[in-house]
């Protein structure tokens, strides 16, 4: 049994799964569009949450938020299921596949055998779509990989029941009703409004552009406060959050710029193209931060690669992004 499902490779798992699932039901939507409407762009520096003893920085919204917002605004009905018993979870998946319904699953990346070894860490927020089964193997549309992948039942079961923070508990989801038409333009505006508000007006110092500035001020203190070794670990952790987890580059800033470009055409709002260009420039600046940070950690730092230089770049990222959101917000009123 294999469902006829168009697999389109994406940068990020959740926006990719969302776009591919909707596409399967005849809604023409790109990954960037799904990411934008789902208000995926974010920034948060959360030093009190530690991953492997290193502070958490996030460039994207909460897990599941993109899919939830998009399906709600489009008026799609979704069935979510969680399980206690792994065998029952697999049986439920089998039944839906037999019915010809592609099923989204939340999994832990560590147990998926088709992941390259260098990517195998315990992170429990990975989404994929199961589109078929051949005996003991499942056929999987994992949006961050170029082709369909195959995965043994026992591996998929382990991945669906990965433990630790944000354990997926066998979570699976599928669409049960898709309306004839969807309020596309209005949803684009909703998505933009949420991102702007979050980035500009979230209370506290750690979220949005304030968060970027807070992080910037911290970075230059790291070598003194933590010592060279630990400081360098903090920086590489930041680079990994920004680049490694399927962000499409520049901590999702390029993907969002692609969304703004598409939105400019859709809403006939040429102003958005200008902001898309500015977002691209902000993404380039984030990339520059990664280059300097990595060089610093390799001990190949020149004069311009110091922690003070990283602080300056991050401050400029914050300034540029703030300008974008301030101009973006009035366009969707």
């Amino acid at each position, binding site marked *: 049994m294999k469902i006829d499902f168009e697999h389109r*490779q*994406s*940068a990020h798992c959740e926006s990719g799964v969302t776009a591919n699932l909707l596409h399967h039901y005849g809604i023409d939507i790109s*990954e*960037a569009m799904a990411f934008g409407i789902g208000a995926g762009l974010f920034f948060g520096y959360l030093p009190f949450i530690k991953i*492997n003893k290193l502070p958490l920085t996030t460039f994207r919204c909460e897990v599941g938020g993109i899919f939830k917002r998009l399906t709600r605004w489009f008026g799609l009905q979704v069935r979510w299921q969680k399980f206690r018993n792994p065998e029952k979870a697999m049986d439920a998946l089998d039944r839906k596949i037999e019915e010809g319904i592609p099923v989204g699953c939340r999994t832990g990346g*560590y147990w998926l055998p088709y992941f*390259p*070894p*260098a*990517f195998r*860490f*315990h992170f429990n927020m990975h989404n994929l779509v199961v589109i078929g089964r051949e005996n003991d193997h499942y056929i999987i549309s994992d949006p*961050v*990989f*170029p082709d369909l992948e195959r995965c043994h039942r026992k591996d998929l079961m382990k991945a669906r029941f990965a*433990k*630790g923070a944000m*354990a997926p508990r066998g979570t699976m989801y599928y669409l049960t009703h898709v309306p004839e038409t969807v309020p596309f333009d209005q949803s684009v505006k909703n998505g933009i409004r949420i991102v702007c508000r979050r980035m500009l007006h979230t209370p506290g110092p750690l979220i949005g552009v304030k968060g970027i500035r807070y992080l910037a001020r911290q970075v230059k203190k790291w070598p003194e406060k933590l010592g060279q070794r630990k400081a*360098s*670990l903090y920086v*590489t*952790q930041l*680079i*990994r959050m920004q*680049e*490694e987890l*399927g962000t*499409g*580059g*520049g901590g999702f800033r*390029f*993907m969002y*710029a*692609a969304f703004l*470009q*598409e939105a400019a055409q859709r809403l006939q709002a040429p102003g958005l193209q200008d902001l*898309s*260009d500015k977002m*691209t420039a902000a*993404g*380039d600046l984030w*990339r520059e931060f*990664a*280059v300097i*940070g*990595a*060089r610093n*950690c*390799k001990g190949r730092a020149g004069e311009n690669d110091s922690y003070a230089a990283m602080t300056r770049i991050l401050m400029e990222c914050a300034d540029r992004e703030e300008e974008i959101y301030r101009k973006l917000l009035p366009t969707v009123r």
Partner: protein
Amino acid sequence: MKISEVPQQPGMITDGRREICYAVDDDGNYVLAGSAGWEPKNIANDQAWEIIRDQMQDTVRKIRSGKLSPLAFLMVSNQMTPALLAQYVGFSRWRVRRHLKPSVFKKLKPEILKRYADLFDVPVDTLSKVPKDIETMLSKTDTP
């Protein structure tokens, strides 16, 4: 990022696959471009693995000197802490910590060992083996 700037510096991806980057073409339009990898990312990823490798070497030393049971090696090489391992096998944390003691581990019943063996997908009798040559072991399991 322009298409011409999409990095092609392999490191983490070893099998010729590509990951998606968003880049701008000559007309200023966004397109999806495949990337083989990027040096800053490779450096950051290497460093994460270096930590795991250090932990593994440290653990092997402790097992050889009789401070930890061989189970500790499987735990650490699977990037787990006693707390995470406990969740996976369904024992309490203090029980897993006890199993990390060589004296306790030696007396464990086969059914308990099987829980660990199933999780790590290894035969029960290899549970008590410590890798002889850690470097080849590392290059086999973890090094990208």
